[in-house]
């Protein structure tokens, strides 16, 4: 299983990478949405993408919309990771095409729950 982690904070990327590796994933990362789109082109289709919402350049919501506009990535599981966990933001994320969301700070339990929801790990 392979995951792509997208966050402008290197510290948060490391934290998410550590959690994903504990769940059995190989992890690649990117620092913003534009870099992540390029990374997708290089690495091929991962099993899941975890993407931060607030980033300079292309933010997480724009990245989700860009991925959903590409037929090659149809059905690619996208998880928004955000410090803003209110209902309006979650609704915006779902409307853009995100499959799940995780509130910051991410915990092993929240990540596992999202991966289970996406049927990427056993429940």
């Amino acid at each position: 299983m392979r995951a792509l982690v997208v966050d402008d904070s290197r510290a948060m990327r490391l934290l998410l990478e550590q959690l994903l590796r504990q769940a059995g994933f190989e992890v690649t990362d990117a620092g913003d949405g534009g870099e992540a789109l390029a990374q997708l082109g290089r690495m091929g289709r991962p099993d899941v993408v975890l993407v931060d919402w607030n980033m300079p350049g292309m933010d997480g919501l724009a990245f989700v919309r860009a991925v959903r506009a590409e037929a090659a990535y149809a059905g690619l599981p996208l998880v928004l990771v955000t410090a803003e966990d209110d209902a309006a933001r979650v609704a915006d994320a779902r409307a853009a095409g995100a499959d799940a969301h995780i509130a910051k700070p991410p915990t092993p339990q929240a990540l596992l729950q999202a991966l289970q929801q996406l049927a990427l790990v056993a429940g």
Partner: protein
Amino acid sequence: MIERDDVCRLVEHVWGLVVGLGAEAAPDAPGETGPAMHVPVRGAWEGYVVVSCDRELARLAAARLFGVASKTVTDDQTNDALGELTNIIGGNLKGLLPGSSSLGLPGVVTAGLPAAAGPCLAHAAFRCEGLPFAVALFGCPAPLAAGT
């Protein structure tokens, strides 16, 4: 509008989860002793959340987040870690504010707060490993411009 006890409870929780070290409210702790980051809040409530931190504590937090020794932490790593902590604390504090609003990007507080910042509406000081840090909310008298 926002209770100091709620701020303390939330910050202690977030700090513990992210840094992995306990933080306790400490009204006697000095407020601004080292690097500081701000994150703007726009929407029904407009203002800034500011996290200021003792320099040694900022390096300790960065060391824990990056999995390196404190003495090897760079300024970039310190700013990255403190910026992300400010983002997470700001996002969680936003849930205590009235109405719907959104966060901007964290920035370093260099020569004082952005000009748009108004009065301090809430301030809470903490200690972690005996070292001080503080969280403050500044309201804005006028709406923040996009990209602020």
